[in-house]
């Protein structure tokens, strides 16, 4: 187990290195500069700025500096906002995104599994058709359209929820729903088909032959096995929730990391892009890693490679 974890950590470092490198060169390829926005600076000032931030150095020096800065988690100050370090920005906005993300994941998993189980238990009956329709709807409607619709109807017209902003739990509901909906749909479909597959398997019949009630069979036997594919989906789900938050945070004006990330790219705010990219990468890589460990805990048949007994 220890062996396995160490090996995985090595891979994560390697992956991070590749991501940092690719981001660096992509940023260099993209036209524009942090200071080439609306205002036109006099050339002298721009020259001075470029010098301060080391943008005049040859690419390999810049690359080396980036690598060192990244390795020490010193992403420097924002090039756009004065006296704001990237680390501060992350520390400030990440808790917001984390709250939103966790809420969205709980909603996605909770509703997804619930809807999936219901439709499997009422296979080819009305609740199944209803649940499947909702799930397909969820999968096919993009989150930004859903976000806009909910904002218009639930917040603006009916005034049940605040339209935008971030000021307590009630503000998080609509954005979390917008992010969660399509994932809930996907998880529901996954749970349904996996439940149906398990339901027709011999051990479920055997459990019934033991005299267990219908619901005991579902909760004690079917569900755990049926949820294995859902656990596999948790990795992509994390990624989806993170990327989903980029757009949804914009729409609902949530001061989260996703909003900063998107803005930093439009602004060519190199240091912030770098910092957030590395940060997101770490989160995603660890999410996948944790899912793998979780999977081996839930399914006793899986022995982690490299983990000799």
């Amino acid at each position, binding site marked *: 187990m220890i062996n396995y974890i160490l090996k995985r950590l090595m891979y994560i470092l390697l992956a991070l290195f590749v991501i940092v490198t690719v981001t660096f060169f992509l940023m260099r390829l993209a036209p524009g500069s942090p200071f080439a926005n609306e205002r036109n600076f006099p050339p002298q000032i721009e020259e001075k700025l470029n010098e301060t931030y080391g943008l005049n150095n040859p690419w390999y020096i810049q690359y080396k500096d980036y690598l060192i800065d990244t390795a020490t988690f010193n992403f420097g100050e924002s090039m756009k906002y004065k006296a704001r370090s990237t680390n501060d920005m992350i520390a400030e906005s990440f808790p917001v995104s984390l709250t939103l993300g966790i809420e969205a994941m709980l909603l996605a998993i909770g509703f997804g599994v619930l809807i999936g189980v219901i439709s499997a238990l009422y296979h080819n009956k009305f609740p199944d058709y209803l649940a499947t329709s909702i799930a397909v709807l969820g999968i096919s409607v993009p989150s930004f359209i859903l976000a806009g619709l909910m904002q218009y109807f639930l917040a603006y017209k009916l005034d049940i929820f605040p339209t935008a902003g971030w000021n307590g739990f009630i503000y998080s509901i609509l954005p979390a729903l917008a992010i969660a909906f399509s994932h809930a749909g996907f998880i529901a479909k996954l749970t349904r088909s996996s439940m149906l597959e398990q339901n027709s398997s011999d051990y479920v019949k055997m459990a019934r*032959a*033991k005299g267990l009630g219908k619901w005991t069979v579902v909760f004690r036997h079917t569900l755990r096995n049926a949820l294995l594919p859902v656990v596999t989906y948790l990795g992509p789900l994390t990624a989806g929730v993170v990327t989903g938050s980029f757009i949804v945070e914009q729409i609902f004006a949530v001061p989260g990391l996703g909003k900063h990330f998107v803005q930093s790219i439009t602004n060519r705010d190199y240091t912030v892009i770098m910092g957030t990219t590395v940060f997101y990468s770490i989160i995603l890589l660890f999410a996948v890693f944790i899912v793998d460990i979780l999977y081996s805990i839930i399914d006793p048949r899986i022995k982690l490679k490299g983990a000799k007994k």
Partner: protein
Amino acid sequence: METRKKVVEVKDLRINFKTYAGLVQAVRGVNFELYEGETLAIVGESGSGKSVTSNALMKLIPQPPGIYASGEILFDGKDLVKLTEKQMTKIRGNDIAMIFQDPMTSLNPTMKVGRQITEVILQHRSMPKAEAKQKAIQLIDQVGIPFPEKRYNQYPHEFSGGMRQRIVIAIALAADPKLLIADEPTTALDVTIQAQILELMKEIQKTSKTSIIFITHDLGVVANVADRVAVMYAGQIVEYGTVNDIFYNPKHPYTWGLLGSMPDLDNDAEELLHTIPGSPPDLTHPPKGDAFAARNEFAMAIDYEQEPPMFQVSDTHFAKTWLLHPDAPDVAIPEIVAKRIRTFAEKEAQYND
């Protein structure tokens, strides 16, 4: 012998399935009875309705698509067909237990084997968990698995196929059932393991008074385990009798076919394996008359017109073929079947010496 208790009596059981292709008449009027401590073997080709019959006894036929079209299943004098799902849960696993065909899939892969056994005990008996655990360990030991304490805490994938089937048997025995239904319990295992499992089942039968319904398509197994045999064809029992009746005095041409197609391990394999020509009828449209007529080399005109009744051959022996009608011509048993019967007799004589 007269005072033996009747455990199960099945009367005119009919099970249909609603499918897109039409109504499948999987079981078409099955009758049999089973006494305490007795083993009944149900034999027949694939698709003859053996599994449907055995699942029907447990009320494990999914409804829909399954339909209990008619009949009674009297268990201890109570008709199971009429019981509600809730009442059935008290009988399943407790009074009637089941052993499935494939031990590789009939255990829950993510639950420890021990818990899969105690689960049955705790469901039907009120006892502390520790005591249930003791009983489970004792059961694992009883079905012949070494290191039962260690095995108790293992998962199914840590067991071989034969060992898993032993666990399945332990689960079936956990609540001391009155009736054990074994649906081809050895088909998925290799030959040596098969023999061990059969031995185990015979031993169990000796020590408890459990009645067993043993389903198989292998007549060779039947002679070993059964007291009585029901031969099934196209959803009906076509011949019914004691093991001796079926092996030494078979009356139905289908039984002849089965006996003729038994692989004979001792023979020098110079003779070809005989098979019954043709294939079973489509049960959505069962043929008029005798369902076996189309494959029966001795079929008579009436076989295509009218379904034969059960003719009584002796007190214990019945067969559903027009050949037993007083007006039917005398048909001699095919030579290869007669030869088989002579080998059985010789072997038995040797065995008894």
